[in-house]
């Protein structure tokens, strides 16, 4: 009877997503956990669960900052500079995390091994920097797959014209060369464009990076010296240049960021769009999108090395090294990334980072053909996804690389010259910082 009782309590706790080892009734009564969390509609639904954690542990969460990640990044840097890192929980991102080697603590001793084992291994690997598990991933795993307008592939006249010109059947592209050819074929500027790409900041840098990998190259050597001024690098940059020169992308694409891409595809003026999973619901929502009902989703195409592009990243939560109540903070982080939290967060579209939740959402979507198609495409792409190179200088080097990529795209420099200048600038940065 005793065993049954204990089992029932455990089952009840588990049904709420509680890891018994991490959280006990009233365990942190009177503790206040200060948190800096990412803001934005897509991220805030999860925060409704904070009240449940407060109720269960007796602790209080005080959100002292809520901004987008670029702003949080600046705030963290200012906090490190000012030594004001006594707050406890912070939103983090796999692309930004290597920049703060000393800000966040190792979560391994604070979170149960069982809980950590439930995450997709690749995500945990990317969240581990210099042997420290600096964050637990939430259900905001990002990798890009291919969205396209299905009607373009159902038009016999287009199919015939395409085959006559390129010699193969018109079908959603499986390689980036096919993608380029189809984008050029569909383009009818200024009313309709074959594709678009994010053209500045980390966005174009990330796209370039994944294409370099797909074409068999790499961004950095093992000693973190630049390696992108290579044949694979040139092939990748040429792909962007060719699309721009052919007028297959909007002329302002070098100023576009993610919102511009999402709204552009939803406006019905773009044929093919490599984009994030968070947009899938928006694209198929008749109230928001002109292409609703006409959206196809396929895995990201492959480069010349037969490798699929798969620049990936994820949001998560970290605990600061200077936090006075690390156990309480880690318990909150564990709670916000547990199965129930991930089920809640992934319901409208974002992808989970726990294996069990992946299985759950696939089962949930089996009666919804569009959602099943979306999940299948992203799951396939996620299989070979890769994070950004593990260097604190990823963002900083990116700020040196992307203006050179833009210069080549806009014709200010040749591909060779742009990559050489970018490579020299990154080399100087690394040397200046004593990396090698």
């Amino acid at each position, binding site marked *: 009877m005793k065993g049954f009782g204990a089992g029932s309590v455990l089952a009840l706790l588990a049904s709420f997503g509680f890891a018994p080892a991490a959280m006990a009734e009233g365990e942190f009564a009177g503790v206040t956990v200060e948190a800096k969390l990412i803001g934005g509609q897509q991220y805030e639904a999860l925060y409704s669960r904070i009240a449940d954690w407060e109720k269960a542990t007796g602790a209080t969460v005080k959100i002292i900052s809520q901004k987008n990640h670029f702003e949080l990044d600046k705030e963290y*840097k200012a906090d490190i500079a000012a030594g004001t890192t006594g707050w406890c929980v912070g939103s983090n991102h796999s692309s930004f995390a290597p920049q703060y080697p000393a800000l966040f603590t190792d979560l391994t001793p604070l979170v149960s091994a069982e809980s950590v084992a439930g995450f997709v291994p690749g995500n945990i690997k990317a969240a581990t920097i210099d042997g420290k598990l600096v964050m637990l991933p939430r259900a905001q795993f990002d990798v890009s797959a291919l969205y396209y307008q299905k009607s373009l592939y159902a038009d016999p006249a287009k199919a015939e014209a395409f085959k006559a010109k390129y010699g193969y059947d018109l079908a959603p592209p499986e390689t980036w060369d096919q993608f380029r050819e189809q984008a050029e074929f569909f383009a009818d500027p200024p009313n309709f464009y074959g594709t678009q790409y994010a053209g500045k*900041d980390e966005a174009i840098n990330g796209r370039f990076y994944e294409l370099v990998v797909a074409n068999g190259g790499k961004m950095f050597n093992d000693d973190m010296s630049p390696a992108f001024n290579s044949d694979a690098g040139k092939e990748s940059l040429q792909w962007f240049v060719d699309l721009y020169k052919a007028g297959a992308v909007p002329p302002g694409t070098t100023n576009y960021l993610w919102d511009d891409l999402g709204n552009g595809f939803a406006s019905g003026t773009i044929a093919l769009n490599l984009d994030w999973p968070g947009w899938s619901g928006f694209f198929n929502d008749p109230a928001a999108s002109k292409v609703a009902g006409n959206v196809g989703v396929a895995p990201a195409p492959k480069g010349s090395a037969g490798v699929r592009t798969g620049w990936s990243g994820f949001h998560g939560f970290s605990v600061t090294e200077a936090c006075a109540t690390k156990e309480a903070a880690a318990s909150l982080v564990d709670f916000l990334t547990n199965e129930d939290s991930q089920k809640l967060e992934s319901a409208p579209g974002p992808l989970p980072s726990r294996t069990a939740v992946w299985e759950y959402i696939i089962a949930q979507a089996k009666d919804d053909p569009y959602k099943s198609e979306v999940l299948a495409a992203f799951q396939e792409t996620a299989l070979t996804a890769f994070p950004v190179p593990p260097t604190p200088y990823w963002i*900083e080097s990116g700020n040196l690389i992307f203006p050179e990529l833009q210069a080549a795209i806009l014709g200010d420099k040749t591909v060779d010259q742009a990559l050489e200048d970018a490579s020299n600038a990154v080399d100087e940065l690394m040397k200046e910082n004593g990396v090698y």
Partner: protein
Amino acid sequence: MTRAKLPPWLLLLMPAFLILAAVVLVPLLLSLYSSFTPYHLTRPETLWKINFPFNYEKALTDPGFWKAFGRTVLLLTIALNLEMLLGLGLALMVAKVRRGQRTLRTMMMFPMMFSPILVGFMFKFIFNDNVGLVNNALQSMGLASTAIPWLVDGNLALFAIICAEVWMSTSVFAILILAGLFALPQDPLEAAKVDGCTPWQSFRYVTLPFLMPFIYIAMAIRSLDVARAYDIVQVMTGGGPAKRTELLWTMIGRTGYVDARMGYANAMGYIAILLSIAFTVYFFLKLQRARRELGMGD
């Protein structure tokens, strides 16, 4: 033993000195000091390592820095002159209005009430190549058959940024010049009329010299604003693409806050301040000369 007493004047000035030191002098000295170091925001220990004159040498020998410097001077020159001309025209027209002038003056100040960030977003949308108002209007009227990349082409992007700056700040000139027009003594104008001057001659030789001190004050104020232009440009183009619209402060802002290289950013900032000082001194000297010509002394 008597305690040394501070003179009363120093005692009375002390609060002002202390506040000024705390909010102006200390940050200024700290940033000047950090410009002599490789200070990186995420590595606080770098603040204690002197690397002078590395940051200054790096900035002064960087062609990108000088291009941004030149572009800032160009933006300053074009925007200030356009704003002055349009502000002068606006002020002269509003001064002629007899009914509803107060309402007009208030309306004229509307653009100044918007946050520069908002103005940046507004003009970014207006000049968007795909869904922007300008391109749609030009294409609808048959004046353009292709999408004009307003925010991509270097010259067009600078034009778009100047449009936003001019829209927001012409009224600064208009209001100050209007104040000058209200203070304009009528006797010289009437004397000019009696002497048979044409309206243009009256304006050129009587009204304009009197307005010049007001114009130079507006120029000095706006030159400081434009020389540190950041928000509108950051929103509209972020200094890009391919650094085509990079200004001093978009470059310094990115180096300091995104790349976290605060030491280097401060060094560039101190060089950039020379630009602001040069323009302020220039306009101050012009102002003094204009006042002397009017017999208003120094």
